[in-house]
């Protein structure tokens, strides 16, 4: 035990290393379709061995960005550099990246083996070498029994594996995944997420995944770029995105959140006080804010970091709201309370059900107090 503790645990965070050269540099890239601006002056760095997620609602430009990395779309302006090489003039079939398509795009007239071998044959490798690599890939995705089948004879999950094997067969420097799990059912999706992570770790390839599913992005990725209408709202590791969103948009898109508008009343070295419009009781934050007194800011608090109680919390003069229980959603492991404040605004609180239902004391129309710790509140400037 002691030995295990003494071993230094290095965290994978190349983006924090100042001298690290990014594997992919997206520099001031803009993409227009006619008058429509799909990508608006985006700059991003993706590092080697990262599992990088482009997350956003549909139409935010994430797939366009991915297709530009693959070479199917050409930036209107700006440039993309992959592994030190400017990709502006490089057609898709000469790029060192492979893509896994949302529709899988398996060749229907070829067997599983032939599909996987397709890319290798383009490189004119010796036959034995191709056969070896195909077998390795089939083993990797556990499709040994299906090697001679055509895509139409496979289930959705199996097709997804063939698509993955085919895109990995050429040992690309980077794999692009366009909503790879979108067509799978929930359980299979969750299993496959972990499998993707294992494969990525095993092969040491940089993965860039496009998804609209925030849970998927949180589970698999080392960093998430949250995109919104052609721009990047925030780039950070999953926990940071969740705990410290930089804007109301990001906070709202990732998970549930209660947002209160207010004005800065007091700024200390390690905390700040905000007067919120929803209540007379001020809000205290666990961090200082870089804002002038009186400036309009927003306080975000995650539902699971709040507590609902029948009695006023002891010794608390801040971070307490009074309201009435409007709705209760019982989800088994947790209950979600919708509490209506005096000004008719709703606050969502999620609490784990640590006691049996019978001992539940909070019910509809109860007058309750909603409270939270100062470090649970995040101040958003926009």
């Amino acid at each position, binding site marked *: 035990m002691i030995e295990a503790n003494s071993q230094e645990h290095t965290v994978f965070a190349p983006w924090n290393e100042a001298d690290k050269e990014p594997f992919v540099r997206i520099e001031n890239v803009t993409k227009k379709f006619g008058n429509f601006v799909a990508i608006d002056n985006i700059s991003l760095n993706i590092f080697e061995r990262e599992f990088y997620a482009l997350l956003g609602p549909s139409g935010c430009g994430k797939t366009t960005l991915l297709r530009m990395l693959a070479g*199917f779309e050409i930036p209107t302006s700006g440039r993309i550099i992959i592994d030190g090489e400017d990709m502006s003039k490089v*057609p*898709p*079939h000469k790029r060192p990246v492979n893509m896994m398509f949302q529709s899988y795009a398996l060749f229907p*007239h070829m067997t599983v083996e032939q599909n996987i071998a397709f*890319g290798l044959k*383009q490189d004119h490798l010796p036959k034995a070498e191709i056969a070896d690599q195909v077998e390795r890939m089939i083993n990797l995705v556990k499709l040994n029994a299906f090697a001679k089948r055509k895509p139409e004879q496979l289930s959705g999950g199996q097709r997804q594996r063939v698509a993955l094997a085919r895109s990995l067969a050429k040992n690309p420097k980077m794999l692009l995944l366009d909503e790879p799990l979108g067509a799978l059912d929930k359980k299979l999706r969750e299993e496959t997420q972990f499998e993707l992570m294992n494969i990525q770790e095993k092969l040491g390839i940089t993965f860039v995944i496009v998804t609209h599913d925030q849970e998927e992005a949180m589970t698999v990725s080392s960093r998430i770029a949250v995109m919104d209408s052609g721009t990047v709202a925030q780039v950070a590791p999953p926990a940071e995105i969740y705990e410290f969103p930089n804007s109301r948009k990001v906070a709202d898109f990732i998970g549930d959140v209660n947002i209160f508008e207010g004005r800065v009343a007091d700024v200390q070295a390690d905390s700040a006080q905000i007067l919120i419009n929803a209540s007379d009781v001020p809000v205290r934050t666990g961090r200082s804010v870089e804002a002038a007194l009186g400036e309009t800011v927003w306080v975000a608090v995650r539902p699971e970091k709040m507590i609902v109680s029948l009695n006023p919390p002891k010794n608390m003069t801040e971070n307490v709201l009074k309201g009435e229980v409007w709705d209760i959603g019982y989800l088994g492991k947790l209950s979600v309370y919708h509490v209506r404040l005096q000004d008719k605004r709703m606050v969502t609180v999620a609490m784990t059900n640590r006691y049996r239902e019978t001992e539940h004391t909070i019910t509809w129309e109860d007058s309750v107090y909603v409270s939270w710790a100062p470090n649970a509140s995040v101040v958003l400037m926009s």
Partner: protein
Amino acid sequence: MGAERLCRVDELSGVAMTSPDPMKKKHKGLPLVSGGLVSMICECPPYRWAASRCYRWGLQGRSLTVMVPYLWLVLLFLAPFLIVVKISFSEIRIAIPPYAPLFEMIDGLYVQLNLHMANYQRLFHDDLYMHAYLSSLRIAVVSTVLTLLVGYPIAYGMARAPKSWRLPLLMLVILPFWTSFLIRVYAWIGILKTEGFLNMFLLWTGVIDEPLVILHTNIAVYIGIVYSYLPFMILPLYSSLEKMDHSLLEAAADLGCPPHKAFWKVTFPLSRPGIIAGCFLVFIPAVGEFVIPDLLGGSSTLMIGKTLWSEFFNNRDWPLASAAAVILLLLLVVPIVWFQRFQSNRSQLGE
């Protein structure tokens, strides 16, 4: 349960049913949607009579549906064909109809079957017919290949055109059908003849000094067939190319396949069903074609369709013409059946 048993008893006894209750049960055997009009039709006596008859003979919705095309083929293909076969085995006679009957009563006691093989013998011994068959096949094969070569790029271009263009383009392909086939073939005479539009244009541009002789040669026949049957090639090709997923080509490019190679490795194999359908649609009528060789071809153009026509109408030799038609059909059907078997074996092997 009770009603079911009642029904079964009635079936066994074979009594025509008039009581409304078992009748209603009976309708369950037919795929009927209950609704205002449908139930009105179902309740009318002729329908009920027909339905009960069909049901008693073991005919239900499914077998009835399958029967319709079979009935069509038997009435409009098999029966006429058998009549032609019958005529092909009889002797020519100057009468109405111009052939001897197959069965003859002799002395009112015997029925004599007269199988006259001379027509087939003549077909195989007279070089004219064999040459006509071979020349028809050759002309049909060449023009099918030419039609494919011309039609594929057109179909490909149409399938890759912006969505809003596709329907107008499709209309343009079908548009020539709105004019009579004969008139269109006649128009080619005006274009191809020695002082026709083509020669006038080429002379005017200075490409040639003397007019080309195209009309009344096999080249004119090829032009006529390719022109006339082009839509039959384009439509199936277009439909197979149009439903192809464009992301397949992106996937091919992504895996390192340049566009021209991706065409041969992905697009072409996937359009195979369209190629096969188009080639059959052009090849089969082209073999038996007689209007185009008659109008555009010369004296040296030998095609079985034309030969058939002259045997039927100029010589009034129905038996010989029928025999020629039967051989032509066998020439076409045998390879097609063989090909289809080969295809289905292949697809079974793939599984």
